[in-house]
């Protein structure tokens, strides 16, 4: 009986995967070029992320606020960092799609830059995914109620990936990949990331 239930679950998983692949093939974004990148990006305030992940800020909040106020403040900061990681993940997806299109270029330099961009974007996606799972769990279980934890500074790395460092590397890779844009557009790209 149990094996039958598992078999049905696996078959259902397979069917859903087939439907998803069909949807990907049907609704794919037309080849994303440089014009389709900047308007689709969400700005990520890296200095804000740095301050959220700073252990000293955690300590300062804990020192200055009452336990209840501290818990509320922590929840707000968690929600804020969740939004930042959502934006990071979204920007990384847009850049992966751009790099996909660039991979078909005849110029080996552009292909090389696109590969680097894609690699960094995937690392950002992995970091964002792991961090968001952790944050959702913390928010769902209200883990800060029991121990006055979690400490946001622990989110700096996830799966051996330093989130902010990798996001900065992604920005550098994007600047290199889009170097041929006019200066005002390149500036707009760096501001939008």
């Amino acid at each position, binding site marked *: 009986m149990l*094996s039958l239930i598992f078999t049905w679950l696996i078959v259902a998983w397979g069917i859903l995967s087939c439907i998803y*692949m069909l949807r990907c093939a049907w609704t794919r974004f037309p080849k994303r070029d440089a014009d389709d990148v900047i308007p689709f990006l969400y700005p990520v305030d890296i200095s804000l992320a740095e301050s959220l992940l700073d252990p000293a800020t955690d300590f300062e909040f804990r020192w200055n606020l009452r336990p209840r106020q501290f818990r509320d403040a922590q929840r707000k900061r968690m929600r804020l960092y969740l939004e930042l990681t959502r934006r990071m993940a979204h920007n990384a997806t847009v850049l992966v799609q751009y790099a996909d299109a660039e991979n078909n270029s005849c110029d080996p330099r552009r292909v090389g*830059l696109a590969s680097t961009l894609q690699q960094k974007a995937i690392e950002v996606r992995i970091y964002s995914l792991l961090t968001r799972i952790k944050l959702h769990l913390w928010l769902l279980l209200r883990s800060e109620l029991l121990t006055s934890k979690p400490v946001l500074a622990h989110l700096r790395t996830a799966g051996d990936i330093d989130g902010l460092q990798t996001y900065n590397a992604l920005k550098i890779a994007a600047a290199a990949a889009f170097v041929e844009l006019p200066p005002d557009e390149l500036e707009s790209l760096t501001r939008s990331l």
Partner: protein
Amino acid sequence: MKLLAWFIPLGLLALLFCLLLQRRAYKVCPWFFTYVAFAVAADSGRFVALSHPHPYRTTYWITEAGYDLLGILVMYEVLRAVLGGLTLAWWARLIFPAVVVAGVGMSLARANAVPSRLSGIEFYIVLGEIAVRFAQVFVFAGLVALVRLLGLRWRQYPFGVATGFGLYATVMLLTTIKFSDFGTRFKLLWGWTSVVAYSVAVLIWIWFFSVPQKAENQNPELSALSPGDLKQYKDALRRMR
């Protein structure tokens, strides 16, 4: 009608084999190339032996064992191609053995729940076949989850190979667990569903391999940036700080 059911998958496989040769897929996916070459040879062998019951039976079971072995090797190749570019973490090497163990476990559990009428080597071949199908669905569904979660490019050869196998394996598992309720009509339904699902899988492979894919080059020899581009790049980096 029976001949048509033989000719359609065999014809599609021959077309796929030519396409793989043209795309030099033996360099990118050597085990999948071997699988397709074996499938063309195996189906031709079965077709030749069709009117001789004893040689047909022998050919059928030998080629079925070959399909099992190559099916799992192709899954190894797909996982290595996708995960190799994603992570160097030690646990990534455990994914394939875990998939195989899960597939064998599910196949054994099924054999225990629904006793087979086969015995001896034939029983083990069918057991292996069901384990490979479970493994193929696991790999396919896992890769689709990666596409969804990490935004990976899905239009690449390893995903195409996994999609074809995943679709076929899903349909065959569904057929095995559901159509067995139909009693004597099961054999007919199973045969036709198998032919249609396999033909669709081969069409998926043809579609994926119809587009050339550049081999991954980890260290491309980059031409230097022009002085103007270099200045602009430095300006962009300065603005980021």
